[in-house]
C-alpha cells in the first residue's frame, strides 16, 4: 500500500515540477518582452516610467543577464521558496494574494464537492438499484441534461429567471459589517449551482457502478440471506463501488475547480475566479502563474487525500494484493 501511495506522491511532485517549468517557459520563451511577462503590463509601465535604472536593477535580480539554464535554476529555487513575484496591479506579493483568495474559493469548492459526492452517490446508488422502473429510466436523462448546462450558464439562468431572488444577494462575499451568517447568505446561490452540477455527474458515475455490480454473485448471496434491499445496497454493494467512485470523484475535482472559477465571476465572489479574471484583464502575468500553481497544489492535495481513502477502503488494495 505504501508503495502505491509513494508512486502517486512522486507523480504529484512531478506534476508540480512540470507546472513550474511551464511557467518558466511561458515567461521567457513566449513572443514579447520577457520583462513584461515577469512584471505584468502595469508593473512594466510603472517601472519604465520611473526610468531605465529600476528596470536594469530588476533584470539582474531576475538573473536575466545569465544563461537560460541559470535563469531556470533561479526560477525553480524561487518557486520552491514561495517567491512567486510581485503583482503591481494589487501592489502585493503574488503568494500572499493567491493564498488569501484560495481560501474563499475553497469555501465554495469544498462543500460543493462534499455535498455533490454524497447527494450524487446516494441518488445514483438508489437509481442504479431500481434501474427497472420507468421513473429511473427517465432520471438519468434528466441528470445528463443538467450536466450539460455549465455552472455559470446555470447561474445566469437562475439570475435571469428571478432577477431579484427574494432574500438572496446576487453578488459579493459579505455586506459591510456582516457576520458569518452574511457569508452563508451570500454562499447559498453559488453553492446551490455548483452542488447541482456536481451531483449530476456523480449521479451518473454511481448509477453505472451500481448497475455493474447487480449481477455479481455476492449480491445474490446477500439477497438469499434474507436481507432487505436497503441493507444489500448500502451494506454490500456500496462497499464495493465506493473505492472506484472516490477515485473518479477525485479526478473530477480539477474540473469542478474550473467550473467554480466561472461561477465566482458571475456572482462576483472574491475568490480565485475573480482574481484570474482581474489578472487577465490587467495582463498581470506573475499573478496568472501564481494562481495556476496554487490551484494545481490544491487539486493535487485533494487527489492525495482521495488516494489515501481509496487504498484504505478496499482490503485487497490495503494489503497490496490485487487478486480478487
Amino acid at each position, binding site marked *: 500500500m505504501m508503495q502505491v501511495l509513494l508512486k502517486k506522491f512522486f*507523480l504529484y511532485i512531478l*506534476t508540480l515540477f*512540470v507546472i513550474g517549468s511551464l511557467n518558466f517557459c*511561458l515567461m521567457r520563451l513566449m513572443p514579447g518582452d520577457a520583462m513584461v511577462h515577469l512584471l505584468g503590463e502595469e508593473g512594466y509601465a510603472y517601472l519604465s516610467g520611473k526610468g531605465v535604472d529600476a528596470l536594469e536593477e530588476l533584470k539582474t535580480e531576475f538573473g536575466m543577464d545569465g544563461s537560460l539554464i541559470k535563469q531556470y535554476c533561479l526560477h525553480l529555487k524561487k518557486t520552491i521558496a514561495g517567491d512567486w513575484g510581485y503583482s503591481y496591479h494589487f501592489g502585493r506579493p503574488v503568494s500572499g494574494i493567491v493564498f488569501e483568495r484560495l481560501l474563499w474559493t475553497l469555501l465554495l469548492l469544498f462543500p460543493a464537492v462534499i455535498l455533490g459526492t454524497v447527494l450524487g452517490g446516494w441518488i445514483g446508488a438508489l437509481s442504479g*438499484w*431500481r*434501474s*427497472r422502473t420507468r421513473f429511473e429510466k427517465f432520471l*438519468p*436523462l434528466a441528470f*445528463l*441534461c443538467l*450536466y*450539460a448546462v*455549465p455552472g*455559470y*450558464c446555470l447561474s*445566469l439562468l437562475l439570475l*435571469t429567471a428571478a432577477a431579484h431572488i427574494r432574500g438572496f444577494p*446576487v453578488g459579493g462575499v459579505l455586506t459591510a459589517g456582516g457576520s458569518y451568517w452574511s457569508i452563508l447568505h451570500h454562499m447559498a446561490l453559488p453553492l446551490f449551482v455548483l452542488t447541482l452540477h456536481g451531483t449530476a455527474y456523480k449521479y451518473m458515475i454511481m448509477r*453505472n457502478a451500481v448497475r*455493474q455490480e*447487480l449481477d455479481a*454473485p*455476492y*449480491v*445474490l*448471496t*446477500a*439477497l*438469499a*440471506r*434474507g436481507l*432487505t434491499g436497503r*441493507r444489500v445496497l448500502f451494506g*454490500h454493494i456500496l*462497499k*464495493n463501488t465506493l473505492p472506484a467512485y472516490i477515485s473518479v470523484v477525485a479526478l473530477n475535482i*480539477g*474540473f469542478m*475547480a*474550473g467550473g467554480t472559477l466561472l461561477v465566482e*465571476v*458571475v456572482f462576483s465572489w472574491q475568490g*480565485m475566479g475573480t482574481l*484570474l479574471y482581474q489578472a*487577465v484583464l490587467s*495582463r498581470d*502575468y506573475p499573478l*496568472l502563474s501564481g*494562481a*495556476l500553481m496554487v*490551484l*494545481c497544489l490544491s*487539486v493535487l492535495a485533494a*487527489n492525495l487525500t482521495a488516494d489515501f481513502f481509496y487504498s484504505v*477502503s478496499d*482490503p*485487497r488494495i490495503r494489503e497490496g494484493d490485487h487478486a*480478487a
Partner: protein
Amino acid sequence: MQPEKRIRQTTCVFAFLLTGTLLGCAFLSDMNPEPIYTPLMIPDYNHLLGTDNSGRDILALMIQSAWISLSIGLGSAFLAVFTGASVGCIAGYFRSPVDDLLMRLTDVVLLVPTLPLIIVLSAYLGPGVIHAALVIALTAWPATARVIYAHVLKLREEPFVINAKSMGAGSIYLMFRHILPNCRELLLAKAALTIAGAMLAEAGISFLGLGDPVHPTWGSMLHDAFVGAALINGCWWWILPPVLCISGSVGLFNVAGHFLSGATASTTPADTPETFSSADCCNQADTPVSSLLSIRNLCICFSGSEVPALPVVDKLDLDVSAGEKVAVIGATGSGKSLLLLALLGLLPAGAKVSGSIFIEGKNLSAYSASALRRHRGIFAGYVPQGLGNALNPVLTVGFQVAERNRVHRGFDRTGALKAALSSLSAVGLPNPDKRISDYPHHLSGGMKQRVLLAEALSVTPPLILADEPTKGLDHSAAAEIMELIKGLNTETVLAVTHDLIFARALGGRILVMLAGVVVEEAPADSFFRSPLHPYSRALIAAQPSRGMKEIAGFHISGIMRDVSGCPYRQECLIANRQCEIRPPLRFFQGHKIRCWHDVS
C-alpha cells in the same frame, strides 16, 4: 439492435445534423450583424431575438457565432483525439520505456486543472481562433490517450495481431491497419465527448473575455451580455440564446458520446433480482400437501426475444419431505439453478412464473415481503457456488457468516460472531478464530465453499438449497464438502449438481432434468445401478468410472427446446414417431420416467 448498426446509425444522424448546421450557419452568416439597429430592443417581428447594447441583431450574431464555436470545438477535438489516439497506441504497442514516458506525461496533464491552464495559456498567447483551438487540444488529449492505451494493451495480445506480426508486418502497418481500426467505436465515442468538452472550454474562456473580438462565439456573446449589465437591466433575450446554444450543443455531444460508449444504452438491463413475479397461479385448486416442500406445475419462462417464449422450467412437480436428500442433475442450461432461485423467490426480473410452490403447506407467492425475507434467512439456507465472488470481497468472513443471525435472530455483534465461530468450526475450517477476521481473497476455493456452507447452516435452517457445491474444487476438497453435506442428518437437502459422484454419495433421490423437463426421478441406488431413461443412460455411461463412453446424443446441441415433443428425441437411438408428442411422467420399474418406451 446490433451495436454495429447502432453506431452506424448514430454516426450518420450526427454527421448529417452537423453538416447541416455548419452549412446553414455559413450561408446565414451573410446576414449582417453589424450595429445598425436601436440598441437593446425587445424581441419583435423584425428582430426575432432582439438586439444587444451595440444594436446588433442577436439572431444574426448567434448564427455567426455558431459557425465559429462549432469550428473551434470540432477542430480542437479532432486534434486532441488524433494526438490522444497516437499517444495511446504508441505507448500501448511499444510498451516500456516509451510506455512509461508517455503515460506519465498523460497522467501529469490529466492531473492539472484544465480550465485554469487554458486561461493562463491563452492569456500568454493572446486571442485568436487558432490559438484557442490549439490550447484546448493541448489539454484535452489525455482522456483519449488513457482509454485507447488500455484498449491497445488488450488488442496487442489478440491472435490476429500476433498472426499479422508473424507474417512480418511492420509496426506502423500493424498500428494503422490492424490496431487502430479496432478502436474505432471507442474513438468515435471519445470524439463526441471531446467535442462537448472542447466547446465547453471554449465557451468558458470566451466568457472570461479571452475570446477573439473579431470572431464572436457563444461564449463571447455571454461575456458581452454579462459585462453589458444585461442581468441588471433584465435583458433576458440577450442571455438566453447563447446559454441555450452552449448547453444544447454540449448536451447533444455528451448524449451521443454516452450512447456510443453504451454507458446509458440498456441492451440487457441488469435487473434487481428482488421481485418474485408471481404470475397467474393457475393451479390453486391443488390441495397443499403436508410435506416440507411441494412444487406443483411450476413453469418459468423469460419474456425476451424468443416468440413465443420457451419455458426454462416446464411443468415441474416435486415433493420433498422433511429430512430427505434430493439431487437434481442435468447439463448446463437445463434449468436446475433457476429451480433453486424460484424456491427463494429470487428469480431475475423478467422471469414469468406459473404454478405454485408450497412451503409447509403455505403458498410462497402469498408471502409478504418480510415473510419472504424470513423464509430466505431462516427457513431455506442457500449455498451458492464457492467459485468467484459469492462472498463479498470487501467484507470479512466473520461479518458475512454472522449476518443471518444478526438480521433474523436479533443477535448482537459479539453473540453473532460467537455463533459464526462455532458454525465455522463445525464445517471444519482450519483456524476459525483467525479466519473470522480474514477477507474472502485469503481463502482457497474449498475454504470459501466451507464458509458458504457455514453461513447457510449458521441459523440451522430446515431446508438447505445447494447450487453445485463441488464445482471447481479439486478431488479431495470436493470429497470433504461432500462428506459435510452428507453428514447433515436433520436438514432437508436439495442440491443441484453436475457431479454424479456427489449425487450418488448424497443418497436419497435423483431428479434428472433435460431442457427444463424432468425426464427421470428415482432413488439414488436404483438409479445408478440401472438408469432407465435413454438420456440418463447416456449421462451415466459418460462418467469417467464407466469408461467415459460417448453415447450418441450427449450433446446439448441435439436437445430439442420446444414444448411439443420429447426433448431427447433427436439424439435418442430408440426414438420414433410417437416421440413427437411429449410423453407423460409415468411409473416404470420403481422409477418415474418420461419416455414412451419400456426400456430395460
